[in-house]
């Protein structure tokens, strides 16, 4: 094919040779012009002309972003690492004493355990709910737009505006208590349900409900995109083979969505720390113990400018995040190897 290409490109040049010699000469010319992806060696060349140009341009394109990220994130982060090993005045090193202090801090333990509890309970629920909604709403002909718009709307409504409605529903004489009283048959005088849902131990499930209400839409869009990427012919083939809806779900849909799953997980984790906004607006700065989470603790430390605690806490968070990322990456590699060996 290379010979044919060469003769077609340079039909009238003198010295146009066929055969191996002609190929070599044309190859050299192409390499000189930089169009070496036509040559047989293009994969082995380190960087062809365009790729070299792109690699050089990359740093110009990246420079503004990188500069800002370094100034506003990387340098502060290095500073945080440094300060976590120093004492309160920031001068003398104290080794791991800060870490010991923070790990033994009751407030930190409570906040960390609540955060972990929230993540492990809320994220699966959120992903499952949004997945169920995606299965419900998904239409290949692109028609279920009203439902899609509606379900993504909660994400767009500002938290500060929604908080009033949540207060209407969850306050002590609010709609939820009224509904429960009506169901139970209590009268105005003998109220059985009188909780302040947000400021008592029921705050945790309430927070999960409001969080899922708000964020299911975003995950819904991701799932819908994943569902759309599975080709229809697989489903048709399965139907012909007699697979029912459940089998189609288990053997086509779920495997096809494995890539989307990872991304939904990452983006849900990214969004999950924003639950602090709702918790703060609903329950204030000192909420019930069940929803006292890491951001609450950090904001208290910040108010007292307790720098070393904050830095140490940050380092612990980052190490935890890196550990989880490493485990996830390792698990992915292991699963891929297992899949290949089968």
């Amino acid at each position, binding site marked *: 094919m290379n010979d044919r290409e060469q003769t077609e490109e340079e039909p009238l040049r003198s010295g146009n040779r066929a055969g191996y010699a002609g190929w070599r000469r044309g190859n050299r010319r192409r390499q000189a012009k930089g169009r070496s992806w036509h040559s047989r060696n293009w994969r082995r060349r380190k*960087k062809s002309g365009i790729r070299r*140009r792109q690699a050089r341009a*990359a740093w110009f*394109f*990246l420079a*503004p*972003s990188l500069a*800002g990220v370094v100034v*506003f*994130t990387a340098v*502060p*982060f290095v*500073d*945080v690492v440094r300060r976590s090993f120093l004492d309160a005045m920031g001068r003398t090193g104290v080794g791991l004493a800060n870490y010991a202090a923070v790990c033994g801090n009751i407030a930190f333990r409570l906040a960390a355990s609540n955060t972990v509890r929230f993540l492990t309970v809320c994220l699966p629920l959120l992903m499952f709910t949004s997945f169920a909604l995606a299965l*419900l709403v998904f239409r290949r002909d692109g028609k279920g737009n009203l439902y899609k718009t*509606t*379900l*993504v*709307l909660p*994400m*767009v*409504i*500002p*938290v*500060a*505006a*929604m908080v*009033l409605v949540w207060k*209407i529903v969850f*306050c*002590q*004489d609010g709609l939820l208590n*009224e509904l429960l009283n009506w169901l139970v048959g209590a009268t*105005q005088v003998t109220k059985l349900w009188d909780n302040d849902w947000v400021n008592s131990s029921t705050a945790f499930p309430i927070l999960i409900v409001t969080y899922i*209400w708000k964020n299911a839409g975003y995950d819904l*869009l*991701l799932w*819908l*995109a994943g569902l759309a990427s599975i080709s229809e012919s697989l489903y048709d083939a399965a139907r012909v083979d*007699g697979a029912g809806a459940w089998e189609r779900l288990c053997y086509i849909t779920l495997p096809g969505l494995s*890539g*989307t799953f990872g*991304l939904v997980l990452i983006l849900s*984790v*990214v969004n999950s*720390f*924003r639950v*602090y*906004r709702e918790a*703060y*607006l609903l329950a204030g700065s000192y909420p019930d113990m069940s929803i006292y989470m*890491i*951001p609450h603790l*950090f*904001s208290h430390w*910040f108010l007292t400018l307790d720098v070393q605690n*904050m830095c140490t806490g*940050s380092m612990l968070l980052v190490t935890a*995040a*890196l550990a989880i990322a490493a485990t996830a990456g390792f698990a992915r590699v292991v699963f891929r190897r297992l899949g290949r060996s089968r």
Partner: protein
Amino acid sequence: MRDLSRMISIAEKRKPLPRVVRARLRHIVCAAVCLLVWLPVILMLAAAFMPEDELLYRYAEPLGAGRETVRAALLPSYPSVKPFLELLFRSPGFYVMFWNSCIQVIPALAGQFLVGAPAAWAFARFPFRGKKPLFFLYVLLMVLPFQVTQVSNYLVLDRLHFLNTHLALILPAVWATFPVFIMTKSFETIPNALLEAAYLDGAGELRAFLHVGLASGYPGIVTALLLGFIDNWNALEQPVAFLKEMSLWPLSLYLPNIAQEKAAVAFAAGIVMMMPPVLLYLNGQSELEQGVAASGVKE
């Protein structure tokens, strides 16, 4: 022969509901779920058109005016535009806060686009040494909550004398890495052939980026900006940490306090604060879906 009989027996075993019934059932369930979304919104809209005495009659407790049964209504009994008039004509504080929000959000978005789009293009299309670790760093920074770098951000901004100004909120937001991530994923979906055609026509990298990349990656850019707008419009932790004067507070911080000062306008203020993100969303909905889809598809 055995397969055929197996197929027939399988087909006989499963008797799904007729198509029409299934479709109707789906619509009913979808509508029920959507009602869960619409009811709070309608509640808010109705409350925004209630005069003050009706508001206090119905929602005294959520507004912090004493314990009384909540008598919610989806339609106001005495509809009135007074809350909006009161808000827009007699609350100068509201205007200040609204413009504070605008001043803090719009330059941040512009900055995110100017700084992030080229970086996303580089990540998506250019091969360079250290691309993978650098992108991993960006993703890691995206995942970390604000609190991790809160103190050091504070100290850096203090050193640069930006604390207690709008820049304290704008500058860190400009270099957020989440928009870069979304735009990268969107730029990755642009087919190679398009760019090769541009290169063949003599375009350099900058031209290819400006004419092909920005045009084709438009959904990703819209998605990144829309999500960035929503995130910054609702920003809570950054203003609390970096702003001392109340005159610089954005709307997201001021709104919860409005209920204590002026119960009458609380819901109307909520509606006004809700308008920009909702309108932007309704306009950019299809781009948002495409951008999110691009970020979700496996490479």
